[in-house]
């Protein structure tokens, strides 16, 4: 099957040519330091600034859009039996504000994240992987409701996903 062989070769080539692009993106972005408060040495930056993602920040509707998103996000989580226990007795307004700051900072929106690092802020919560994933799902639901493009959602989630290492403690 000549056509199959050619397609196979094309696929292999496509795979190889796509990979280096993301390889360059990720470590470079991770190196940029956030203009955030002093942090514990050795703990990953909770709000690494990605200046290349300012277009994504625009897709979120800037800071007003981010603030509105967090209202929806928190409301959805409080209806989720898996997540409600983590938030129902917490300072929801502060969490929403700091999440908006954090996401804005990450997406190059110029905000300064004023919260604690991810390890310190989640240490006492006994978070499982399924809890972390449930939060991601609710964030996706909230972003869908705000009609944020799927590609832009994923660019933000790609920066947030590695934070699971500090957040998931059991």
């Amino acid at each position, binding site marked *: *099957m000549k056509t199959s062989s050619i397609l196979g070769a094309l696929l*292999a080539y496509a795979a190889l040519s796509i*990979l280096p692009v993301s390889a360059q993106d990720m470590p470079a972005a991770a190196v940029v330091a956030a203009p955030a408060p002093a942090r514990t040495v050795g703990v990953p930056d909770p709000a690494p600034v990605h200046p290349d993602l300012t277009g994504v920040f625009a897709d979120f509707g800037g800071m007003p859009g981010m603030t509105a998103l967090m209202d929806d996000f928190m409301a959805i989580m409080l209806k989720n039996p898996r997540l409600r226990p*983590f938030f129902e007795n917490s300072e929801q307004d502060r969490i929403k504000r700091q999440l908006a700051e954090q996401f804005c900072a990450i997406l190059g929106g110029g905000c300064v994240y004023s919260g604690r690092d991810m390890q310190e802020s989640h240490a006492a919560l006994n978070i499982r*992987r*399924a809890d972390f*994933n449930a939060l991601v799902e609710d964030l996706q639901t909230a972003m869908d409701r705000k009609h944020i493009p799927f590609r832009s959602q994923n660019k933000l989630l*790609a920066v947030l996903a590695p934070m699971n290492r500090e957040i998931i403690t059991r």
Partner: protein
Amino acid sequence: MKVVSNSFATRLSLAIAVACACGTVQAQDANALNAADETATEPEPAIGTSGKLLLTGGVTQIEGSAGGGLTPWAVIGGYGTRDQIGGNAYYTNVAVDDYGLQSYGALVGLFDRVELSVSRQLFDTQQVGALLGLGRGFTVRQDTYGVKVKLFGDVLLDQDSWLPQVSIGAQHKRNAEAGVLAAIGAKDDTGTDFYVSATKLFLAQGLLLNGTVRLTEANQFGVLGFGGDKHDGYSAQLELSATYLLTRKLAFGVEYRTKPDNLSIAKEDNALDLFVAWAPVKNVSLTVAYVDLGNILIRDQQRGFYASLQFGF
């Protein structure tokens, strides 16, 4: 499903029952744990089920392992996270020009670490069966028992790392038609494939890539036996797939799988498919594909459609 033996049906339903029971028992354990731990101040939600993100358990490939349509991926099937058990059952129908192939089975994913699967493949020779003197619609039956173990990595979460999720697996295949297989030159009616799969989601790009290397003796997935008069013994085969995520629920992609060419009676070609996978909700997924299987026995250019329905948790 023309030749469903009772024993297989029983085993299959047993596997599904066990999978469901495990999920229930686990949920009860979690509740008991919560009751005993009432004094604790930390939130303690139930362990529950289906904690993985949508479609990240993959669909079920033709030999019953979690993956794409043709090739296994490094993911552990079902929606269980490392604290949970997941499972699913599937039915796949492939209709190419002169043959039909059905596959159905179930799998259990244990703690996002180990996957156990059992499946059946039915290869319907249709008119070719009559031409070969086997009888029209002669159907070859094969049962496949699979195991897969995740070694390291996380397909989704390690977005700042190059490391893919890597798993190793085996598929033990037992073909029920020893006499026919010997007549076409196959050396054996049972065989075991061994594979290693690396799978990585590049989330910012919306691209899921998989590469699998399989050591196999199988002719046409095993439905034409194992080893042959032209070549006997294992050979290494490459399986590649690329999937683009359109939305959370919808993905499309391409898969390519090289196969050995062991029989002198008929050339065996590599396989290709172009697929769309849709998961309207977590418990259900539907995959449809255009598939090109090349030459099979005395008929060349076997192209057609593939449809697979999966239910799970």
